[in-house]
């Protein structure tokens, strides 16, 4: 278990990649929150504002062939892995051009080209699927790692223990990523978990616990963990402490959680670091923000223009 320090030697290209993906997730989530009350999206939304660094730092090290299995809070990690924004938007709008053709909704996203074999809305279960991907790689299906991505509340489900146990017994190329936002809906971790997540995981595999609001720290730790899993050193566990600024579901802020931008905002922290080390100018940051806004405008336009799925084509 390590508490790694941000890598101040990160290259500008890498830092820009991280910033761009985090901004894409943040601004998309903010736009969803803004549009949601108009009912254009007939599907629940589980936003991840404040948690962008975890998926972004992780996915920086994943390849398209690596298989990422997600839970219900899925928009951000899916975008981080490479799901095209217009396919996400079209799915939220319930259109046939959505990544699941309108059959999935916001919690069931798929992008086989970018290593997203599907996401699930039952907390915990998808942890096992990432282990299955690792087992497939071990049995010769290809050169990839399986990644199980879940929250702190999922560690209370039996499938969490069962999955870690099996992955460790067989030394599978699997990465477990726990996005610990400290809440199970409205129940704080102190009330939902008697166990210590890192303590349980580290009994079975190498485990790193990091500040999940610091994308450079996540990027660092994920880089090491992914390369160990890829290199045949068995499963690895990443515990990322983060904050969920919004309610469990819906477009509103969560009043149970205190947010201090200086301390908690992964985007603010990265931009400050990049500006202070001369990687970006304020102008470049502003340009990036507006470029992403245009991208979101285009994705929404695409979704609005797209046809709704035809019920007559729905086969039994």
């Amino acid at each position: 278990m390590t508490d790694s320090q941000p890598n101040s030697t990160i290259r500008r290209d890498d830092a820009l990649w991280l910033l761009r993906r985090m901004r894409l997730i943040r601004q998309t989530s903010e736009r969803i929150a803004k549009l949601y009350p108009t009912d254009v999206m007939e599907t629940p939304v589980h936003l991840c504002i404040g948690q962008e660094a975890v998926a972004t730092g992780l996915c920086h090290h994943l390849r398209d062939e690596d298989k990422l299995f997600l839970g219900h809070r899925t928009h951000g990690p899916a975008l981080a892995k490479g799901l095209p924004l217009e396919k996400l938007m079209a799915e939220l709008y319930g259109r046939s051009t959505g990544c699941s053709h309108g059959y999935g909704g916001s919690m069931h996203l798929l992008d086989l080209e970018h290593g997203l074999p599907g996401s699930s809305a039952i907390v915990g279960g998808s942890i096992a699927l990432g282990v299955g991907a690792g087992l497939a790689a071990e049995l010769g299906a290809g050169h990839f790692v399986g990644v199980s991505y879940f929250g702190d509340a999922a560690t209370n489900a039996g499938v969490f223990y069962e999955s870690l146990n099996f992955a460790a017994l067989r030394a599978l190329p699997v990465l477990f990523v726990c996005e610990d936002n400290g809440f199970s809906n409205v129940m704080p971790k102190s009330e939902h978990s008697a166990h210590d997540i890192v303590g349980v995981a580290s009994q079975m595999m190498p485990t790193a616990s990091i500040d999940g609001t610091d994308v450079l720290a996540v990027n660092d730790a994920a880089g090491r963990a992914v390369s160990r899993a890829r290199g045949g050193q068995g499963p690895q566990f990443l515990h990322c402490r983060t904050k969920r600024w919004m309610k469990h579901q819906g477009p509103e802020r969560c009043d149970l959680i205190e947010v201090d931008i200086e301390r908690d905002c992964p985007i603010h922290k990265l931009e400050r670091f990049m500006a202070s080390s001369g990687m970006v100018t304020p102008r470049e940051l502003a340009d990036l923000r507006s470029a992403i806004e245009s991208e979101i405008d285009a994705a929404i336009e695409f979704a609005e223009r797209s046809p709704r799925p035809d019920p007559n084509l729905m086969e039994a």
Partner: protein
Amino acid sequence: MPWSRFDCDYAAPAGGERELTYCHAVREAIDQAMQLDSRVFAIGLDADDKFGVFGSMSDLSHPERVLGTPISENAMTGVALGAALSGLRPIHVHLRNDFLLVAMDQIVNYVAKWQDMFDRQVQVPLVIRSVIGRGWGCGAQHSQTLHGMFAQIPGLKVITPSTPYDAKGLLAAAIKNDSPVLFFEHRWLYKNTGAVPEEIYTLPIGKAAHLHRGNGLTVVAPSLAAIHALKACENDDLDVDLIDPRTIKPLDLDTILASVRRTGRLLVVDYDFPFAGFAAEVCAAVTEQAFDALVAPPQRLTFPDRGMPAAGPLERSYYPTPERIGEAMRELLAGQPAVTV
């Protein structure tokens, strides 16, 4: 694809061919599929033990692809699904179908839904095979037969072979299939023998078989019930059209309806619970679609609506037998004759 090399529909052998037990027919299907396709692997509790799943996993020619697991059925089902989504063709094996209930989240919420949820953009070539039925005083948690409950879930195919020939051909078809299949083998069929071709072959999923021909009464019976019903027909030389659906889902309703239109009478013998089960489904479908042909109300012969007992006298009262099936058949046959046009 290696599978195209044997994709043929064999007619049931007439006899004089190689005899194999039901258990060894299952084993041979797995072994030949693993030889044919390196993506096929087996996983499950005691799968790698020579006595695993009542001996059906013994001496497989690719032991490196036969994996024993901890008692973690729920996660292991998810592991099998994850492997199926990552390019392999898993066979998840279970000693008893009662253990599948530990994995209901994965089977119902994940395995069954994964294709529909993404508009069938993904393939889920996953077989879950499990032994069903009673043992010897095994009681309520080790004697169930739950094909009806699983068949109710969209996204699952449910296969219940009754003969060694069907067991081998349908299991090969299940492994070849790109959607999830539950494959239920009755424990009391394991030692039955029958003619089984040596080469690998598939049988169509969703096609019933006639085990006995007649015109007075249609009897639909899957798995062990089919063999017991056949015995009842032969014991008393009854004028019964006996249909083994072979697959519970998809169900070959056409064959059943054509028979009922001829006989006017229906008895469903199902070794499963009665309420909202397979027998109820067949009766409902026949009533909906062939009401005019019926000359008597469709009847069901199933387990009682309670958990299984253990002591000998209680077991003998609880479970249907060939004798009780014969009685039910004779009662229906003695009723008003079908009006023939």
